[in-house]
């Protein structure tokens, strides 16, 4: 694992998300109302809906396809729904976001 810079936190609207295009699918990067940054695979564990398109509320996002509520911190679906999507470690230094990603990828 290594830290890869993906851009400034201010480029993501509050209570919104942007995506990072990856070779194995998109990663959704979220910014919450309290200015925390989270990153998840952009696939709902339910039917693969793009979580980056959902409504963000506290530390959760609601999938736009069938309203699964996914925790931003660990990717777990809120009970009683079941399922988990991959969550990435995030670091913000001087407003710049980095994700902990495998050594096999780099920023384009």
């Amino acid at each position, binding site marked *: 694992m290594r830290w890869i810079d*993906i851009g400034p936190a201010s480029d*993501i609207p509050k209570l919104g998300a942007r995506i*990072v*295009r990856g070779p194995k699918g998109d990663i959704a990067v979220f910014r919450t109302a309290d200015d925390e940054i989270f990153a998840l695979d952009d696939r709902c564990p339910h039917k693969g809906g793009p979580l980056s*398109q959902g*409504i*963000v*509320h506290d530390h959760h996002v609601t999938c736009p396809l069938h309203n699964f509520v996914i925790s931003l911190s660990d990717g777990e679906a809120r009970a009683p729904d079941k399922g988990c999507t991959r969550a990435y470690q995030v670091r913000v230094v001087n407003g710049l976001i980095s994700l902990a990603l495998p050594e*096999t990828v780099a920023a384009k």
Partner: protein
Amino acid sequence: MLDKVKKQKLVVIGNGMAGMRTIELLLERAPDLYDITVFGAEPHGNYNRILLSPVLAGEKTVDQIMLNTLDWYEANNITLRKGEKVTMIDRRSLEVVTGAGDRVPYDKLLIATGSDPIVLPLPGKDLTGVVGFRDIYDVDRMIEAAKSGKHAIVIGGGLLGLEAANGLMKRGMSVTVVHLMETLMERQLDAIAGGLLKASLIERGMQFKMPAQTQAILGETHVTGVRFADGEEISADLVVMAVGIRPNIELAKKAGIYCERGIVVSDAMQTYDGRIYAVGECVQHRRQTYGLVAPLWDQAKVCANHLALKAFATYKGSSVSTKLKVTGIDLFSAGDFSGGKDTEEIVLQDAARGIYKRLILKDKKLIGAVLYGDTADGAWYFQHLRDGTDVSQMRERLMFGAAHVGDGGKGGHSGQNAAAAMSDEAEVCGCNGVCKGTIIKAITEKKLFTIDDVRAHTKASSSCGSCSGLVEQILASTLGGNYSEAPKSKPMCACTDYSHDDVKRIILEQKLKTIPEAMDFLEWKKPDGCHSCRPALNYYMLASWPGEYKDDMQSRFINERVHANIQKDGTYSVVPRMWGGVTTPDELRAIADVADKFKIPTVKVTGGQRIDLLGVKKDDLPAVWADLNDAGMVSGHAYAKGLRTVKTCVGTDWCRFGTQDSTGLGIRLEKFMWGSWTPAKVKLAVSGCPRNCAEATCKDVGVICVDSGYEIQFAGAAGLHIKGTEFLVKVAGEDEALEVIVALTQLYREQGRYLERMYKWCDRVGLDNIKKAVVEDIAQRKALFARFAYSQQFAQIDPWKERAAKGQERHEFTPLAELELV
């Protein structure tokens, strides 16, 4: 310490359900406002008095009905002085005085002294073995007596008396119920239902002596029997007096607080002394006193709001419904069924099946209901009763229940299922494939009590919601007496206790102009709400403050955020507007070019006479919009909770039957109304003659042109529910037609709850009220029209152009970064 603001002192007299519920809600709203002291005469924490009957019957234990344990008081820094009695309120020095002479000061005082059982002034009433049925102590004594005693007499054939009698029978005693009146539970039942109830209780072994007046309770030290006015004597080892309750107002009365039957309170639950509030069974509000739990909950909510210094909630009284908690007996009653002048009745009686139903109507509204034997529709009738729904439209089918009315939310898409008749394999929720057996299993195994729980655990009724009623029926029949119906006004979502109507009203009254302001004022439980309340609030803001409120894109569902409809694979569908369904060769060429250029996989004609481009990649959206804009087309809002389409036929332009220019009127309507946001989608149609080729009679608003003018229809649906439109008015000219339709839409924008379609709004507020506002009252029609026109100035902006040409919120369509393999 200097910097610490001194807290106000709140003293609560009474440690019962109403008082503690108020405190719980107060702590949610203003956790640090008060130092709280609670006086409770009973030596316990607070328990659910309503469930004493199941405890007596051995179906529940005392622990199971405790609401707040002693730990709870400690955790919330509440001083509980249990077993201590307040004997006086000194309003001059703002203190309460205890039996031991202690004086405790208050800034605010909450009286929740509840009620006392009425003890008949009979000789022998103080003998051992004579008990009331009011608290745990009484229940303990009854259980004790049932261990050795053989025969019990219960005085009182009301709700409480019958539950006591049932419980004692379950404990092995033989029981005689003595009742003064001809009819059991005469406050809840009419003579016929009372008779059916009596018969089925006799079948279970209960004995009755009624009508009968008790003259004396016999015995030396312990009760041995009862003598009646007719001279008969019956022996007994236990006598339970359950003849009713009386508000406990002694303390308040002594302190000079104005009381009648109860302590008189305002709509803010305030007594005549502004520092003193009162809730629960001790209270008299608008001449009414209550002895059931639902009203206490409503009162507690309002009282907590005022104690928390929010001061905007009002209590307007409660309608109550009753269910007898005797296992195996289905009985439901609600509202006023005394009959009388101006009321009408619908009665169904089927003696062989043991079914009796009586509905009482007044002024087109349901005001009372008595159900015996089949109570599946009780909750549904109660809902109509509380909402004051105009039921005249469904009157002829009303008696047969929700399933036969095709009412929204009941009966479901199949329209005829009744929960009880369904097999376990039968599918209840067609959207998510959930069958009845799965729901019952979840209810029993996971101990679910509410429809929201069932939704969360099974997904049943969580998509389109048309099977909600059916799920509710299954819940009610599975839980039996433990089922509590949905509260009066449903909260908007789990983030708040307030209903859609409350929120809308308060936004206007308090001039709340942003979502955070509203959430803050209304004590939202989560700082930024959820996916369900934020879009609703955003709509209410838009509709309340046109031109002032800045649309919050992050509170909109993705479709409205990117002006296209998300598909199952994350691509989008794009629909350009075609005014009145009319297009041109140039537009069609432009659409064909866009489809080719962006390799759009599917091009399809929609039901609303538009062309749908399906499978557009999100990144391509701005470029697709730009090309369509260049050809003169704008967003078709096919994604919007707003005006969607106006479908037309060719009218007098071409059709040999056409009576008016239906195409022209359709285009005019669409050009005037496009861009407006509404509670849910709005689809229009204009047909040029009664042959109705534009299918106007199943639209939200439909116009049927006739030779002499325009028939305006509305509140139709052809989706989850099929419903023909209601006739609104016939007008002579196009201008007037436009004015009426616009005014109607504005009224819907102002009154509709978010996601409530026009036909459901009409059901709720009543056709007559809508007619009054937009047909009869010309001044109001014009005012509504003006408000719509004003808000259109800010709404008629093509979102595609904003975003394609001006590059607004460009970030939505570009990745933050791209990664590659190394």
